[in-house]
């Protein structure tokens, strides 16, 4: 009888565990610099591939936390010399924001389970500098999807402190995106973003004339950290699951290749 009680208790405990205790989605993280030259301004390229453990559709992504090395001059440079408000972005779209508020762009691919089949949709993402939020440097992400789900979604990001060896982290709250009635929310399976001057043109008034210029981007240090530039990303999902992926950008070497020291 006692044995059955113990077994029953164990089963109850197992049943009561949150879904986070189940296998979490796996994430492959990829980061690179464009160009990859120490001591120079660069654009940070970020990619993440999310896979469900059972090869199905992963649960919807709710939070993304990207940590980067302290030696990266993310706040040095000229990215985001202007800001765009959430209200303006939601009402008029990213094109209405000042050119000098754009700091990057990217895409997000989502999977939408409809009946037995799964369809994919890729949304374009604009990344903009926003007014300060509670004393923190703030970003805004504006995602535009067209088919099969027509949606424009604005969601925030904050630059926060991070424990060593990281210098700071970008914390992004990802909203749930309804798909079709009675179907689950869309699930992000692939992210790609660039943060830096690649593809950006800023403008300034010089003696009464509007002059275009290329903003200085993220400044790389002159010396590469031992082992390369370490990045880490933690993703949280709607079912409570959480997973972390790490990667390193190898140290650039002369000749254009890269290596891990």
């Amino acid at each position: 009888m006692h044995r059955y009680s113990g077994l029953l208790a164990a089963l109850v405990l197992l049943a009561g565990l949150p879904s986070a205790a189940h296998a979490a989605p796996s994430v492959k993280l990829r980061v690179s610099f464009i160009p990859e030259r120490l001591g120079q301004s660069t654009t940070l390229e970020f990619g993440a591939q999310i896979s469900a453990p059972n090869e199905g559709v992963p649960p919807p992504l709710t939070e993304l936390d990207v940590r980067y090395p302290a030696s990266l001059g993310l706040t040095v440079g000229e990215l985001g010399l202007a800001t765009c408000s959430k209200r303006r972005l939601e009402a008029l779209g990213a094109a209405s924001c000042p050119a000098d508020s754009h700091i990057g762009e990217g895409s997000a691919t989502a999977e939408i389970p409809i009946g037995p089949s799964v369809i994919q949709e890729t949304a374009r993402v604009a990344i903009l500098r926003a007014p300060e939020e509670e004393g923190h440097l703030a970003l805004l992400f504006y995602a535009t999807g067209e088919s099969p789900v027509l949606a424009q979604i604005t969601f925030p990001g904050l630059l926060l402190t991070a424990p060593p060896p990281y210098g700071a982290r970008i914390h992004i709250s990802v909203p749930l995106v309804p798909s079709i009635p009675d179907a689950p929310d869309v699930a992000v399976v692939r992210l790609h973003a660039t943060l830096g001057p690649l593809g950006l043109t800023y403008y300034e008034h010089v003696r009464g004339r509007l002059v275009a210029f290329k903003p200085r981007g993220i400044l790389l240090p002159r010396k590469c950290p031992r082992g390369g530039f370490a990045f880490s990303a933690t993703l949280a999902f709607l079912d409570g699951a959480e997973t972390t992926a790490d990667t390193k950008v190898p140290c650039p070497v002369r000749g254009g290749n890269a290596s891990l020291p």
Partner: protein
Amino acid sequence: MFRSLRINIHDQRPTRAPRRLGGGAILLIAGVAMLHPAESLSAERGPAHAARSLDATTTAHLHLVRAEGSNLFEQGPISGALPGSMQAELTTGVVFTGSFTTHTRGGSIKGHGAATPHGAGRYQSFKGTLVVTSGTGRYAHVSGHAGLYGVFDRRSDSVIVQTTGKLSY
């Protein structure tokens, strides 16, 4: 996201230093120590001296010397109670941190500080505190805390730093 500040002050005043000195004065003390290390050492080992108050109200206009990743190396003149020059190493981040040395004719002052940046756009203000850790010459015994304020121009990488408060030396 961090910005550190290193300041070097070169005293341009006569040897007799004013009783009130700014953040630049602190830096001056550090400079004096560098110019007269023996004097600084003997002062540290000598009998207790009467602490005097130092006004730390100064303004430094710094320009970028070089940038390395999140570190900015800046220098420029200081005006205020104790004119001179300042060198600062700023580490930029969510919080700005840094060290400074100021040099004046009367001495130099060294210290470090931390400040929180605010605002968005080209000009970013910051506010924090600095700690004076050492000095030379007339300011060999300098110590204390001071307020730290400033504005950073992200287009030119120039910084205006103001310090307020009182130090003892």
